[in-house]
């Protein structure tokens, strides 16, 4: 069984470690202990700036820093990065296409007990509508670390989505020498009957779902789409063609996120059934994470159910 670690932990560890060899500054909005940028702050206090509880200002400050040629990470919870500061991200960072990396943690339902106001299920949708914005949602600790390093070697605005809740580190288990490439999906296994396309927290559940289906004699493929924009359309269309049915899985609203992006690509390039697993146009609520995942249908069992339905819809 793979080790469990939250992607936000890996984000903080990556900033602290990569601060040795890369020159960048980190901003936070009074959440350094939670976003884990505190790990960077401890090691490089002269390159860390707390902006206080003022996320809009932080995003525009980050843009100003980036105009001078300095790479900057701006961190807060996804709700405030993509939600409250949407307009600052769009107009100050996106429109001038500045080299700002937005490290957004506590995305999705797995925030748990804090409840609906802090469970952002809309950030992928919001961020992917911004022209030129790259949107990355790592599946586990190893991938999160690799994504931060890739961000440092990438010029342009990027939204990185991290979770609060520990997730099995499948990447280190399954892929010994992992090479993370922005915009390039990762095929975990190929399938002839259906392909599950998952992102972030849902990737390990997609693998579980494929195992459930395998026991029933259904050959399900699994693709990890860590970059929702730009989408690896080529890989997704190939899977659509080979398996003839797609199920998407994301810890995000079914509106506007991975499911929408995949449905758009498949609808235009290789029309086959696309069924979506995600939060069904609802707010979150307080509770223990495993119970919330059950309530919102973010389970391997639900992915498997949708896969059977998708197969039944094939012509």
């Amino acid at each position, binding site marked *: 069984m793979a080790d469990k670690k939250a992607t936000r932990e890996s984000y903080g560890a990556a900033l602290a470690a990569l601060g040795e060899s890369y020159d960048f500054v980190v901003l936070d909005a009074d959440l350094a202990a939670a976003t884990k940028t505190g790990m960077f702050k401890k090691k490089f206090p002269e390159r860390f700036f707390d902006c206080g509880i*003022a996320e*809009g*200002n932080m995003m525009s*400050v980050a*843009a*100003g820093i980036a105009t001078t040629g*300095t790479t900057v990470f701006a961190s807060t919870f996804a709700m405030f990065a993509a939600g409250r500061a949407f307009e600052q991200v769009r107009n*100050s960072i996106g*429109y001038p296409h500045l080299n700002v990396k937005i490290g957004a943690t506590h995305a999705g339902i797995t925030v748990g007990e804090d409840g609906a106001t802090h469970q952002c299920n809309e950030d992928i949708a919001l961020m992917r509508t911004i022209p030129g914005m790259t949107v990355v949602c790592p599946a586990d600790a190893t991938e999160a670390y690799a994504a931060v390093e890739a961000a440092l070697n990438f010029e342009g605005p990027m939204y990185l989505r991290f979770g609060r809740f520990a997730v099995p580190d499948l990447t280190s288990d399954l892929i010994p020498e992992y090479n993370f490439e922005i915009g390039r999906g990762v095929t975990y296994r190929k399938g002839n009957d259906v392909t599950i396309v998952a992102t972030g927290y849902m990737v390990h559940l997609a693998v579980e779902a494929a195992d459930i289906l395998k026991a029933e004699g259904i050959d399900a493929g699994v693709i990890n789409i860590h970059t929702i924009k730009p989408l690896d359309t080529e890989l997704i269309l190939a899977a659509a063609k080979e398996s003839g049915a797609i199920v998407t899985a994301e810890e995000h609203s079914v509106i506007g996120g991975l499911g929408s992006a995949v449905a758009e690509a498949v609808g235009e390039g290789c029309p086959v059934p696309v069924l979506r697993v995600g939060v069904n146009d609802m707010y979150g609520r307080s509770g223990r994470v495993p119970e919330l995942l059950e309530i919102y249908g973010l389970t391997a069992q639900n992915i498997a159910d949708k896969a059977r339905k998708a197969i039944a819809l094939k012509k």
Partner: protein
Amino acid sequence: MDNERLLRLKQLANSVRFGIIEGVYNAACGHPGGSLSIADVLTYLYFEEMRIDPKNPKWEDRDRFVLSKGHTAPALYATLAERGFFDREELKTLRKTHSRLQGHPDMKGVPGVDMSTGSLGLGISAACGMALSAKVNAKDYRVYTVVGDGESEEGQVWEAAMFAAHYKLDNLVCVVDWNGLQIDGAITDVMNPTPHDKKFEAFGWHVISIDGHDFNEIAAAFAEARTVKGKPTVIIARTVKGKGVSYMENACEWHGQAPKEDLYRVAISDLTAIEESLR
């Protein structure tokens, strides 16, 4: 300031005002009122105060300017053209479909524009980021920004004010273009943001209040700002919205509309009279 220098600045500012009117008239839309009010401050910044090189607009060590009240782009473009960043003729393309002179400043397209702005409240924060970056990277460039008095109703202006004081950004100067008017009327009637001096002082800034059309006072204020250590400076510049064009002065209806031909001629004749008085 000696008379020759003063006269030259007045002539340059009047030429900038011609540029504003040409741009807005040819666009048949835009924001002349607040552009005319800030023309003297911008002229001083670009011709006296800032360390810049029009031949090398991306020069790493240049002073930076952020027009936080981005809708007064016609004033910025006219000043940049006057200073030689691009040809004056181009001002006539303002807001047109294939022009790089967008309705609000676009740093990707226009030489000399250091930050894209337009959405109010965002520019002053970006200026803070530039000033902070200078501190982090041990650079000695200075950062200037102009905020509208109406714009200061945006909460982000005060988030930025907190930030600048907290990080002791003494390389940052913010000018408040205090013309007293916004789209819906007098700022004190629409949503009173005053008193700016006491508010900025309470936020930890060094405050200087001046007549924003008096070059001696403008020069003295920027000189004083250079001597202030450990805190940012705000210059509250009392100005006249529409300054220089008779019918636009202190008239909030000229915030965001262009004159048609008859009134364009009046504007040109007003500015020509000023030009002649400066000979």
